[in-house]
């Protein structure tokens, strides 16, 4: 019998009447009111997600920065204390073990926030880190009004610790997974309910994993397990920008060769031009496979990501998605589907 794990906020979710589903071994809220309403709350005002299921690995010690620089794809030398960076953990085939955010506290102390389903794989690839996931609860507060409603200031991809947020000591980071301004708040598990209640009192909408998925897909942020995996490389996935190929890290020689030859397949964004909603695993008749798909609440169209042959990956190219036996026309478009207005 597999027992699902619960975050410190489980009772809060249940009390709000959330629909709870298994996700990466956790019992998580997929929606509270409706995915559409929660999605629009984040695009137009502010929403809060419990992302305490995500994992945290910590490396403290004189070699922390150097150790991670040798094992993560992005150039860690480009950030200093108080800064965060999107990066990839790769295998010796150049495949993506996980995508994660590294928070640089100092040259000898880094915190990695990783996908819940990959904590064990990440820890195995980075055995000198400590799994400190149990020490953290994590809330993502996202949307154009998120920071002002919390009375918090934080620049994108920076963070501060021991900040008082609505009376709770927090790590405040200018990161997220929705394409909106906002922050992620890390706190002690015992403080999580108090922080959650205070956030809701500011009129911030509780949002589940359903809206998290539609929001991230509109901005083409990849989801590990769908769009990226140990069998796909960053260059295929369009994540070359997060790879410093001029330094050494696991699998870099494979990636250098692939960069020279050009990847055979590429991850593209597409919009359906006929009825039907693309879903993970659907075949592309011209060659390839859908990795994510949904009805876009912002655009009102059906959108998806798919791997297709590199020679047929240009925006404007027509493709045919096999929607459970029905061929449906779609068109490759430029990423992302949605971009927030710059402020």
């Amino acid at each position: 019998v597999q027992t699902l794990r619960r975050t410190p906020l489980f009772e809060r979710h249940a009390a709000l009447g959330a629909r709870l589903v298994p996700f990466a071994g956790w019992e998580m809220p997929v929606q509270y009111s409706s995915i559409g309403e929660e999605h629009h709350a984040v695009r137009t005002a502010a929403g809060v997600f419990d992302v305490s299921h995500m994992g945290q690995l910590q490396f403290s010690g004189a070699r922390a920065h150097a150790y991670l620089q040798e094992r993560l794809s992005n150039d860690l030398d480009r950030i200093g204390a108080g800064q965060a960076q999107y990066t990839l953990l790769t295998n010796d085939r150049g495949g993506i073990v996980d995508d994660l955010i590294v928070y640089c506290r100092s040259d000898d102390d880094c915190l990695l926030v990783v996908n819940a389903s990959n904590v064990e794989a990440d820890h195995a690839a980075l055995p000198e880190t400590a799994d400190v996931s149990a020490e953290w609860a994590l809330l993502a507060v996202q949307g154009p009004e998120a920071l002002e409603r919390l009375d918090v200031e934080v620049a994108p991809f920076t963070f501060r610790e021991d900040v008082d947020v609505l009376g709770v000591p927090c790590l405040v980071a200018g990161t997220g997974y929705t394409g909106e301004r906002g922050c992620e708040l890390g706190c002690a598990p015992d403080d999580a309910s108090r922080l959650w209640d205070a956030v809701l009192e500011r009129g911030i909408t509780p949002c589940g994993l359903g809206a998290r998925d539609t929001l991230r897909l509109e901005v083409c942020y990849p989801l590990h397990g769908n769009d990226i995996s140990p069998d796909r490389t960053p260059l295929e996935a369009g994540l070359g920008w997060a790879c410093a190929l001029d330094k050494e890290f696991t699998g870099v020689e494979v990636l250098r060769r692939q960069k020279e030859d050009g990847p055979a397949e590429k991850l593209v964004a597409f919009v359906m031009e006929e009825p039907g909603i693309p879903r993970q695993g659907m075949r592309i008749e011209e060659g390839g496979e859908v990795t994510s798909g949904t009805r876009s609440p912002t655009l009102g169209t059906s959108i998806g990501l798919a791997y297709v042959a590199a020679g047929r990956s240009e925006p404007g190219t027509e493709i045919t998605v096999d929607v459970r036996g029905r061929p449906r026309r779609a068109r490759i478009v430029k990423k992302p589907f949605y971009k927030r207005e710059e402020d």
Partner: protein
Amino acid sequence: VAAEETYPDDLKYHREHDWARIEGDTATLGVTWYAQDALGEIVHYEPPADGAALAKDESYGEVESVKAVSDIIAPLSGEVIEVNQRLLGEPETINEDPYGEGWLVRIRLSDPSEADDLLDAAGYRQLLDEQ
């Protein structure tokens, strides 16, 4: 705006959460309040073709919510004489009015006696209570 939970007495129910409003040798079909609530916000309706033959207990179309797709099971056999065109542009009507504007198809019944196998509203409510 989601509808209130109801199971009208004038309808017949199939245990796969479909309803039929039988009028002579034709019937209007749809999904129950329970079905639309379990699915969540419906964002796509894949209807059968006009004239398609529906077989009782078999799938004749699909409704899809943001997160899942579900077959629609025919409570009765017959030939499709009308598809609810409104749902092609506004599938959320199924959530808003599952027994009214959210109907799915009208069919000409091929065997009206099949209706004897269906549940009445009380029987369907009892089925839901047991689940």
